[in-house]
């Protein structure tokens, strides 16, 4: 990926269009569900999908960043749980104001992410193993901090971020978590397409050694992407805790797999350097729409799991083959 292509909006749009396979898949799925269930294409249901998947989208953005530099972050689910628990604990037990609790929690997420990054960059551990260890450590810390029980009573100022709606002109009422997710998506888009740091991320993922020789601060770029991923995971955990009215020590189990599936469905390569934010969001929405539609059609949860597995493999296969055709 050359600098000029990542920095131009047109090509970014082109990147979105190049993802037509998965986008068409999403649209076809939407059409199918709306023909089978009249509840699907209602404002209420669509808002629901967005609200229920806001935290997945946020984590997916962080995952996409780590995958772009050729890494992976398996700890996001545990860090989300820890973020929810610590923010709730700071408010309920320590009596901190919500702003302070949120900032401290985000800082903690960033710190955990940096630790992941340090294990990868300085410890030379494979990202899979470094973040797998962190997954265990963060989950254990969550259990320890909460003593295995949910923390609740964070107050209205906190829980409103999980469900309340903000009236936006033209669009209508938008849930607050969706607004947060949109803000994260927009910032990530700007970061990747408009900043030097974004360019560096693609460069490091494309070829680490070449980037180093070209003067890219490879270590710092990697450290920061893991840091951002950790911070976004903590943010997602707080939104989740707000939506559930309590911080559950077991929440976010399997979130990393959802985020990885979303990223990959959205065309982010597991080998780094390839992928973009709009694609990852489409991937996340695909998983959300699939779950929602199957619920509306009353597909039993066991079959839902089987179908999700098949859709993941089929969508990735279709996507790969369309790209291969395009290259010819």
């Amino acid at each position, binding site marked *: 990926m050359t600098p000029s292509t990542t920095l131009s909006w047109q090509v970014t749009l082109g990147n979105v269009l190049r993802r037509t396979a998965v986008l068409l898949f999403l649209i076809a799925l939407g059409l199918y569900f709306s023909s089978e269930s009249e509840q699907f294409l209602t404002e209420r249901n669509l808002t629901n999908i967005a609200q229920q998947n806001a935290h997945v989208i946020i984590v997916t953005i962080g995952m996409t960043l780590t995958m772009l530099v050729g890494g992976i972050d398996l700890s996001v689910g545990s860090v989300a749980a820890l973020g929810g628990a610590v923010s709730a604990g700071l408010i309920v037990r320590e009596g901190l104001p919500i702003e302070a609790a949120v900032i401290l929690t985000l800082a903690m997420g960033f710190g955990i992410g940096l630790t992941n990054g340090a294990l990868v960059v300085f410890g030379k551990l494979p990202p*899979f193993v470094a973040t797998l*260890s962190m997954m265990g450590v963060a989950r254990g810390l969550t259990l320890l901090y909460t003593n295995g029980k949910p923390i609740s009573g964070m107050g209205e100022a906190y829980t409103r971020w999980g469900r309340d709606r903000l009236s936006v002109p033209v669009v209508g009422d938008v849930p607050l978590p969706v607004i947060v997710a949109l803000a994260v998506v927009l910032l990530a888009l700007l970061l990747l397409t408009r900043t030097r740091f974004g360019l560096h991320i693609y460069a490091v993922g494309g070829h680490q050694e070449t980037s180093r020789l070209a003067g890219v601060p490879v270590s710092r770029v990697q450290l920061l992407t893991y840091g951002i991923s950790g911070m976004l995971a903590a943010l997602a955990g707080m939104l989740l805790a707000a939506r559930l009215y309590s911080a559950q020590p077991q929440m976010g189990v399997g979130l990393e797999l959802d985020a*990885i*599936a979303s990223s990959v469905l959205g065309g982010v390569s597991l080998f780094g350097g390839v992928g973009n934010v709009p694609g990852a969001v489409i991937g996340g929405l695909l998983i959300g729409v699939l779950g929602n539609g199957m619920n509306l059609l009353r597909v039993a949860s066991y079959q839902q799991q089987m179908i*999700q597995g098949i859709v993941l493999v089929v969508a990735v*296969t279709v996507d790969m083959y369309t790209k291969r055709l395009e290259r010819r």
Partner: protein
Amino acid sequence: MIGTQTLPRQFNWRPFFQKYGLLMSLLLLCLALSVASDRFLTSDNLLNVLRQSSINGIISIGMMMVILTRGIDLSVGSVLALSAVIGADMLKNEGMPVLQAIGICLLVGAAAGAVNGFLVSWVNIPPFIATLGMMTFARGAAKFYTDGQPITGLDSLGQGFRYLGTAEVGPIPMPIIVAGLVFLGGAVLLNHVPFGRFIFGLGNNEEAAYLSGLPVNRIKLFVYMAAGTLSALAGIILVGRLNSAQPTAGEMYEFDAIAAVVVGGTSFDGGEGTVMGTLIGVLIIGIINNGLNLLDVSAFYQDITKGAVIALALLLHRAIR
């Protein structure tokens, strides 16, 4: 290191550590635990460690072969559950003879592995995604097949399952013997059979392996089928021990197996790793679990310790190299 001065100067520590560092970590861990708890170094407890490690050990050999080809198999835990519930159902509700039920069970595992292998080799899907899909699918299928309920009461019918899970030959529990045979088979295959050497060749350089005429796709198919079959075998032992087949069995087993393989020195970059290393990796994970229990460490600390020890073991490994 105090002893260094007394040894001849030309003694080179580096290759020594490279070769025996892992084994020394294991011994150090044992030493520390036998100091910390007088219950550790008893034959009962050591057999217990081995028995508890046998399931992870059997899965880890398959996982290692997959990782040697630069792949990964996230579906082992789900495949274990799916094959176990189908095998148990054949035994209990279809009245199938034990050997036949075991055969079906292994076949289910092999079939799931074959799908993984086909997707990875011929369809060319990244292993992470192909096996993530299988992980989700097989878990759903296991729950769908049993309607989410465990299949219990195999005692009267499933002597074969119970035998593999609980019987003892002399003082040695059957699961250890099965795991031992699997390790032996793995060592022979990987070190003494040409096909096993192909696995290393493929992992070292796929392009070169292809150009020198190795059946690249068939090798991949084989390693994923081996991983699936061994997961099913581990499932039979688990069912035998618990006397029930749970559709939720084996959750997170993939992570324990990956941890054991990687702690044992197998590289994610493929082509590098030994069966002995994997054995030591499995034992280290097993002994950590055992030690945490012996020392009455709260369950909350166990995740933390396990995560930290895995990271530390690998950091040490890297530092030595």
